[in-house]
């Protein structure tokens, strides 16, 4: 029984059904959000009288994240606590409307523009949705080629985050400015991983994390190039591939292409080992200096991971068999609650998802949680119950208003699974695979123990020592970064495994070595979903189509889950929750010296990617585009 909050129960055969005799089972009563401190003069007066350290600190925009994110806090600089948080997605996109009425194949190329970092994952999620709707799936080599594209995309993405976006928060200039006493200690602390990364003292690592000039920063940039070079060999372009199609990949590959890809992927064996050693040394050093650093960005380990990297023989594109082919993925689907996996069923993962808009600039589409008895899809294609707030039932109805922390303050919806705020990312796939234990035998270079993941890659220049990631006891910002470092190796292992598989398929030839399958776009009503992931985690594209065009299209992204505002049950979104729990360990004497480094470390540890988080509906009530990172902004009268 994976659901604690949704009105779903399971019969003796394990089939999900709605609880009996519950009228309007998905209805809820909204719990009002707390009154903002600024709107509560008595509380504000009490706080100010108690000490003079209460401050409103807004981070707008938060730099070194993809896209536009603003974050509101009220902090008490004397007690070193965060009293109030609000996460604001301030960027608007228009995919749902742009895609309505179009040929479903267009979604592959248009939705790719949702992100300038990882467009390929959107293209693939669209292709998967099309495949389910069309009733097709790729030949084995097509699936393997798609797996390679995904792996390489992650090998682009993780170095960007660790080297260029999160890394500078741990660099010499940042540490000197915010905690000079830690810098002094770093100068005296030897780095345990010297044999792997070459640095004698922790301070030397921090110096090389310095933006623009640090060797590790520049190395991160360099590895984006290596990944792009590999990607275009199959994808044609980066970040928007030209070869992802329903039913596979529209180009051919041969052994020479695979050689070129492998030459680049193996470079990540040493880079990954080095990155793991660097982040282990930096994180363990901070913990040693002050164990409270474990609490930066901490929150319950509630994660959602659809899984990715399909088995070329198991994946058949059907919703009916989604549980079977999902569990055969290199990263298995997992929903994790309080650190424990509660389901690995893709159908249950899908059935548990809802989106709420009480604190977002949208109108609720089923009657404010009450009038929801009649909606289009009460069940999924396998007969599992669906909520009226499920993406297949969702309508995007923008409702721009002024920002009010108690009411509406974000263009991100509040997605929930079983009405719980979930996070997702490189670490959720690591966690799910590690927790799988002996049932995870997918990759010849990866071993799951149930509480850890052992990665045994072949030797490159560095020794082939096994690397082991352990599920952490306390889940927080530093552990997110550590896990992401391990994910470079995890991803390289999967890429390598798929390269070897591709060689085998090419050698054998025959139908399995074809790259795509022929198809016709059906004329009748169809439904599909791409259950996939991005570098930052969970990604789904839900589609309905009729008469060969898209009827409804909903994109749900990792940062929508994580940047979400509060939900109607009074629970904060993951960024909000993580920052609320963050102790302010920065060294400041006067309030004006406060930089907010601990808050920023907490937020950046999620690897926020805002361009794909929000969507705009372009009709008479449209909200104007602000910034685009890709070609798909929408614009209209500015009302907000």
């Amino acid at each position, binding site marked *: 029984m994976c659901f604690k909050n949704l009105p779903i129960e399971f019969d003796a055969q394990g089939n999900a059904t709605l609880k009996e005799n519950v009228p309007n089972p998905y209805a809820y009563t909204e719990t009002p959000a707390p009154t903002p401190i600024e709107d509560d003069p008595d509380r504000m007066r009490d706080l100010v009288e108690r000490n003079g350290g209460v401050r409103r600190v807004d981070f707008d925009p938060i730099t070194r994240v*993809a896209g536009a994110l603003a974050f509101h806090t009220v902090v008490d600089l004397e007690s070193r606590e965060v009293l109030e948080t609000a996460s604001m997605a301030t960027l608007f996109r228009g995919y749902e409307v742009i895609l309505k009425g179009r040929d479903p194949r267009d979604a592959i190329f248009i939705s790719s523009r949702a992100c300038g970092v990882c467009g390929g994952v959107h293209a693939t999620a669209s292709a998967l949705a099309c495949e389910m709707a069309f009733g097709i799936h790729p030949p084995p080599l097509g699936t393997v080629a798609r797996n390679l594209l995904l792996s390489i995309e992650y090998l682009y993405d993780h170095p960007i985050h660790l080297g260029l976006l999160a890394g500078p928060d741990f660099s010499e200039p940042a540490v000197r400015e915010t905690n000079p006493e830690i810098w002094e200690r770093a100068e005296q602390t030897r780095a345990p991983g010297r044999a792997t990364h070459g640095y004698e003292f922790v301070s030397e690592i921090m110096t090389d994390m310095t933006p*623009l000039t640090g060797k590790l920063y520049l190395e991160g940039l360099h590895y*984006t190039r290596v990944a792009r070079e590999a990607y275009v060999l199959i994808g044609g372009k980066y970040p928007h591939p030209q070869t992802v199609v329903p039913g596979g990949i529209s180009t051919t590959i041969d052994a020479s292409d695979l050689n070129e890809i492998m030459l680049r992927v193996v470079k990540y064996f040493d880079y990954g080992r080095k990155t793991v050693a660097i982040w282990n040394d930096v994180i363990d050093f901070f913990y040693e200096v002050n164990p409270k650093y474990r609490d930066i960005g901490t929150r319950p380990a509630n994660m959602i991971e659809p899984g990715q990297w399909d088995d070329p023989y198991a994946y058949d594109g059907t919703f009916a068999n989604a549980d079977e082919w999902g569990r055969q993925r290199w990263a298995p689907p997992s929903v994790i609650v309080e650190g424990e996996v509660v389901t690995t069923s893709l159908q249950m993962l899908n059935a548990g998802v809802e989106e709420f808009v009480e604190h977002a600039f949208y109108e609720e589409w089923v009657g404010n949680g009450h009038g929801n008895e009649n909606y289009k899809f009460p069940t999924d294609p396998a007969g599992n119950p669906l909520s009226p707030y499920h993406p297949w039932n969702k309508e995007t109805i923008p409702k721009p208003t002024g920002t009010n922390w108690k009411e509406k303050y974000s263009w991100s919806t509040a997605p929930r699974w079983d009405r719980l705020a979930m996070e997702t990312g490189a670490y959720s796939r690591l966690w799910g695979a590690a927790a799988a234990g002996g049932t995870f035998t997918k990759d010849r270079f990866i071993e799951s123990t149930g509480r850890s993941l052992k990665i045994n890659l072949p030797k490159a220049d560095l020794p082939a020592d096994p690397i082991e990631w352990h599920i952490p006891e306390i889940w927080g910002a530093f552990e997110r970064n550590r896990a992401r470092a391990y994910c470079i190796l995890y991803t390289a292992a999967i890429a390598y495994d798929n390269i070897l598989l591709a060689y085998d398929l090419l050698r054998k030839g025959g139908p399995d070595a074809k790259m795509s399958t022929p198809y016709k776009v059906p004329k009748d009503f169809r439904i599909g979903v791409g259950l996939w992931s991005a570098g930052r985690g969970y990604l789904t594209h839900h589609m309905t189509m009729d008469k060969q065009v898209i009827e409804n299209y909903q994109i749900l992204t990792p940062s929508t889950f994580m940047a979400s505002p509060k939900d109607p049950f009074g629970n904060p979104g993951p960024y909000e929750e993580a920052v609320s729990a963050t102790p302010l360990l920065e060294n400041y004497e006067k309030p004006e010296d406060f930089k907010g480094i601990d808050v920023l470390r907490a937020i950046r540890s999620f690897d926020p990617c805002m361009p794909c988080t929000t969507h705009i509906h372009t009709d008479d009530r449209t909200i104007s585009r602000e*910034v*685009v*990172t890709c*070609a798909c*902004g929408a*614009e209209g009268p500015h009302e907000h």
Partner: protein
Amino acid sequence: MRVLVGGVGYRFLRDGAIGPYMADELAAGAANGIEVEDLGYHPVGFTQNLQDRPAYDRIVLVGAIARGREPGTVTAYRWDHALPSDKDIQERVSEAVTGVISLDNLLIVTEAFGAFPRDVRVVEVEPADEGWGEGFSPVVEAKLAEIEEAIWSSTRP
């Protein structure tokens, strides 16, 4: 003389797409040491590509950028290689690797990593409409010939 003409911007953003549009239009006329390329991809990638190639004598960039001028204004100038603060550059690099494509971004990031030749020319167009869609606003549409001439003029020794 080896010259690269690069169109910077996004497709399907009306006037904002003038860079890629010009790259498409001028590509057929590229000859005598002039190469024309769509630079509608992120500036770090462009920097790394430049570092792989034999040096250009001159790079000519064309794109739309809103600077509060009369819409349709065409400005051609030789760039002075001035850079903002390190903090600003760092933010531009972060934007670049996460997908932001803009003329200013490209100039700053490419210069910061030392990939430009000494001679960099810019042809800027003040957009009237950067909304989703194909085609240009009437005011920019009327300037297409002028923009093209400004680009070719910028390639001449």
